[in-house]
């Protein structure tokens, strides 16, 4: 009797121990996030004592080491925006199209080959994408379009778009798999063919899930650094065309942080850019989360 009690007691305490360990692991990412936010604010905010927030965001000139220095990040924000829009034009059709094919059309054997292949794209380090862009894509576009340099917004968009395909594709495929089988069966039963079923039933039903996939893909593109540093050209101008070089926010931080003196205005300005980037992707992720939740409710998949 006594021994049974003892066994169960040790089991309970052991279970408690495991619970605590896993709780600590789960909460540790929260601590990291908090730490990052605190540092971003602590190191980024001091810039606003020398430049006003309005001037920082809407200033058209980025000359951080010049005397007198100018810290206007509008060209950098627009650089990020242009490259992101361009990349979305590449990765939405490719990613969602691939997901539709994989989930709705491909037979299991083809799927078994295609799906891992697409996922391999995600595991290629971004510097290799950058190198590929610099050595292959940029010279190719330069000759094809007869532009002065191939290191431009278009090249960056193409490469970033391809980089985001795996994430959009696999999340969109998840969204498609949440659409109940009965929806499709009902559609076929009404005499709809496969194309009609995909465009009028499956896609709308998975719509918000696919939007989530796209938004998360966008976060990935906005935050991508190495590739844009290598292929976007790096000119801090307000972009006028896709065929001109530009400089996204991430590339600026990467290029200049290593040589900015710690504690200088330049250093704080780079952290403030980081803050802007962080807030942007945070908003994207929140939107994705909200849409994702609604969509589960709509399909009766509330969890």
């Amino acid at each position, binding site marked *: 009797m006594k021994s049974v009690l003892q066994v169960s007691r040790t089991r309970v305490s052991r279970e408690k121990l495991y619970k605590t360990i896993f709780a600590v692991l789960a909460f540790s990412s929260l601590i990291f996030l908090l730490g990052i936010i605190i540092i971003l604010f602590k190191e980024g905010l001091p810039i606003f004592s020398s430049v006003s927030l309005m001037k920082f965001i809407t200033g058209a000139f980025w000359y951080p*080491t010049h005397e007198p220095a100018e810290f206007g990040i509008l060209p950098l924000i627009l650089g990020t925006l242009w490259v992101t829009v361009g990349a979305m034009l590449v990765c939405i059709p490719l990613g969602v199209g691939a997901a539709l094919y994989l989930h709705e059309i491909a037979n299991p054997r083809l799927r078994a080959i295609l799906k891992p292949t697409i996922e391999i794209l995600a595991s290629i380090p971004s510097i290799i994408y950058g190198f590929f862009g610099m050595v292959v894509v940029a010279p190719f576009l330069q000759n094809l379009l007869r532009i002065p*340099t191939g290191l431009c917004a278009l090249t960056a968009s193409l490469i970033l778009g391809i980089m985001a395909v795996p994430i959009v594709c696999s999340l969109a495929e998840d969204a498609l798999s949440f659409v109940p089988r009965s929806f499709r069966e009902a559609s076929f039963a009404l005499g709809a063919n496969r194309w009609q079923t995909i465009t009028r039933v499956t896609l709308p039903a998975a719509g918000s899930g696919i939007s989530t996939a796209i938004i998360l893909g966008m976060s990935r593109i906005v935050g991508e650094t190495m590739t844009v540093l290598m292929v976007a050209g790096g000119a801090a101008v307000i972009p006028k065309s896709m065929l001109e070089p530009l400089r996204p926010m991430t590339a600026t931080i990467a*290029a200049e942080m290593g*040589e900015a003196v710690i504690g*200088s205005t*330049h250093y704080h300005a780079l952290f403030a850019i980081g803050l802007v980037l962080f807030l942007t992707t945070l908003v994207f992720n929140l939107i994705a989360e909200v849409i994702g939740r609604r969509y589960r409710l709509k399909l009766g998949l509330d969890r």
Partner: protein
Amino acid sequence: MKNTTKIIMLSLLISLGLHAAEKAKIRMEGSTTVLPVAQMTAEQFMNINPHVTISVQGGGSGVGIASLIEKTCDIATASRAMKDSEIKDAISKGVNPTAHVVAMDGIAIILHPSNRIDNLSKEEIKKIYTGKISNWKELKGADQKIVVISRDVASGTYEAFNNLALDGEKVRKDALLNASNKAVVMAVERTPGGIGYVGLGYVTPHVKVITVNDVACTRQTILAKTYPFSRPLFMYTNGKPTGEVKRYLDFVLSKEGQQIVTEAGFVGLK
């Protein structure tokens, strides 16, 4: 048996500890341009003097100078002279920066090999980089847009070029930014209308080095300072160097050290 192992381990540990205590340490930090010189001379110096450890870090001229002022390094390497503001800051913190010129470097102006132009005046280069000239035909070249290729604004090479060639004026906004000397060379290689500037040591056969004011960028012209874009490379110490730091600097300036400087692609002082 076990005891013997213990004794051996212990004696090993003790000897390691003693050894570490004997070792003198020199911390060097700063310019990425000077980095190869610093690294190669440090390695050779440590080969000859095994009791000295030299740690070499990049980060940029500004970072090295800031470290010297904060007393977190013994030698700051720099590809530009210290600014007045930095010297003031140093003195206010009780640091007395002392400059040692360890090598000379020339900033070569490079073009795509297909470009007809072989010489530009200093004034023309300034006009190109500040955006007053945007087509090669204005300089009797082909009718081709000039693609201005520059370094990231935080680099010492940029600052040196900015001072020597542009007299502190701003580089045109749409200049391409590259994060390293090698990237500039690569970009010029692939851009028929391109113009770039790099340290002499980074020039490759795939780009064309032009003369500036009809002076070629060579070791002789750089040493004689007739080439307009020559600059000294510095190592800064706090006050007059003493002990191992002094011995290391003497080594860098010795015949052997200057040989290494030349091997690293710079111009030795001797």
